[in-house]
């Protein structure tokens, strides 16, 4: 096994370890390798197995982590905020209604600027009660001040779960990161992936060195005091600035990770787009399904491509505009509804990004997969065919809902 060496910022390529894991186990494995200081856990399907696995590592003495079993998700987030304030590297995981219960603490984590990492196993918000995948949970939290990284497959979930710490803890950022993986589709599906050796992960994430510690009697600080109209706005301006610094850091971390592993991740990933006339924009596992559909249509000579959005917050405006501008037509896929808005959140962000540019690309919205409704190549194919025909009505369509 090769040991990663960091010399002048260059990482030596290490031999990966090929194995097969579920998405939940892969994230737990990444966090075992990072060896976190504090993890707060509260079970909720389909995230439960992630914390089961991590609790197993704790019980077996494979990590030095203090695992705190809390009484709710609100407490889970509160716990990691407190731990982070005291200088710990920490993480938690949740989904759907658990994320909803964390709501106020999500904003507090971000505004206090704590580099917490959380896995969200995307699941539909109740009601009616549903435990299956859609993105309504994290899309609701899109303005909470967290960085949002989506994962196409188990490998990417694992890779995101490691890179997240470097991004969150960068001194220009100090913002929490959510790593998304599609509930059941990724969380419970065993896929082949390549792990980075333990020592290489440890060297890559390095030691977390916080600049202020809540429990340092020699340098007492106050965390979270009242912030009135005279300074609250200034603190929000700082938070906006930190978010604007994220792309440069994500790029740097991705480059270093690529040196180490050979796997490179951008904000977006264009797929067979160079000579495409039409494309679909998608997040998460559906990006993989869309790639498969592109391959089928390409075999038939159709000029189609797709763009995966890996980083949803901050939204990669420039990269997406560059990718889509030369096309005739685009369908933006949303696995959540934004009730009363003109379409799903990814669609609205994409339209906003394109507005004012010189492009004539026509854009429609495909809302799909709510509550875990399956999406396959046979459902994506007609969207591509409509795009090729220029059939853009209805502008917002609901894929595979029974009319």
């Amino acid at each position, binding site marked *: 096994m090769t040991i990663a060496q960091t010399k002048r910022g260059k990482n030596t390529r290490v031999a990966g370890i090929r194995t097969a894991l579920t998405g939940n186990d892969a994230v737990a494995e990444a966090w075992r390798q990072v060896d976190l200081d504090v993890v707060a856990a509260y079970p909720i399907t389909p995230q439960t197995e992630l914390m089961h696995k991590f609790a197993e590592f704790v019980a077996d003495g494979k990590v030095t982590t203090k695992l705190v079993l809390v009484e709710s998700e609100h407490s889970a987030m509160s716990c990691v905020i407190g731990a982070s304030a005291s200088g710990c590297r920490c993480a938690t995981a949740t989904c759907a209604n658990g994320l909803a219960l964390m709501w106020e603490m999500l904003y507090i984590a971000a505004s*206090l600027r704590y580099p917490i990492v959380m896995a969200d196993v995307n699941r539909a918000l109740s009601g009616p009660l549903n435990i299956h995948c859609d993105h309504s949970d994290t899309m609701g939290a899109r303005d909470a001040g967290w960085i949002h990284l989506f994962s196409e497959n188990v490998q990417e979930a694992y890779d995101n779960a490691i890179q997240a710490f470097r991004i969150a803890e960068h001194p220009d950022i100090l913002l929490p990161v959510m790593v998304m993986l599609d509930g059941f589709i990724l969380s419970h599906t065993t896929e082949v992936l390549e792990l980075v050796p333990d020592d290489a992960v440890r060297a890559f994430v390095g030691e977390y060195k916080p600049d*202020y510690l809540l429990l340092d009697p020699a340098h*007492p*600080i*106050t965390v*979270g*005091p009242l912030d009135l109209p005279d300074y609250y706005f*200034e*603190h929000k301006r*700082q938070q906006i600035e930190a978010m604007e610094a994220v792309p440069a850091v994500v790029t740097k971390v991705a480059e270093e990770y690529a040196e180490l592993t050979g796997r490179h991740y951008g904000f977006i990933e264009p797929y067979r787009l160079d000579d495409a006339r039409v494309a679909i924009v998608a997040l998460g596992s559906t990006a993989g399904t869309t790639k498969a559909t592109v391959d089928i249509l390409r075999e038939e000579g159709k000029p189609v491509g797709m763009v995966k959005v890996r980083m949803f917050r901050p939204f990669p405006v420039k990269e997406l505009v560059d990718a889509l501008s030369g096309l005739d037509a685009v369908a933006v896929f949303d696995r959540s509804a934004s009730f009363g808005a003109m379409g799903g959140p990814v669609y609205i962000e994409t339209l906003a990004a394109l507005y004012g540019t010189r492009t004539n690309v026509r854009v429609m919205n495909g809302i799909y997969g709510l509550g875990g409704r399956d999406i396959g190549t046979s459902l994506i194919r007609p969207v591509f065919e409509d795009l090729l025909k220029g059939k853009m009505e209805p502008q917002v369509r609901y894929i595979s809902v029974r009319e």
Partner: protein
Amino acid sequence: MSQLKKWKEVPRGGLILKPGSAAEYETGTWRTFRPIHHEDKCIQCLRCWIYCPDAAVIVKDGKVVGFDYVHCKGCGICARECPAEPVAITMSPESDFDKE
């Protein structure tokens, strides 16, 4: 009043980096009504000094001499509790002092 700091100058996330810094926070800017001490009517009972929640009543040599307007929030407790007749503390709108 001191100059308010710009967004690049304040510690991130509202952190306060030194203890006891509340005294530097000029809560006097919150005031809508200003307490005025009428020395000729004051019986020097020091009730205002006892009741003031912000320690903003200035006492020298055992006598009330006025208010710390940098910290006085103008709550009016001193004026309400003043037992002197006629009353020795009255509240006046800050707008009366705008030209100061």
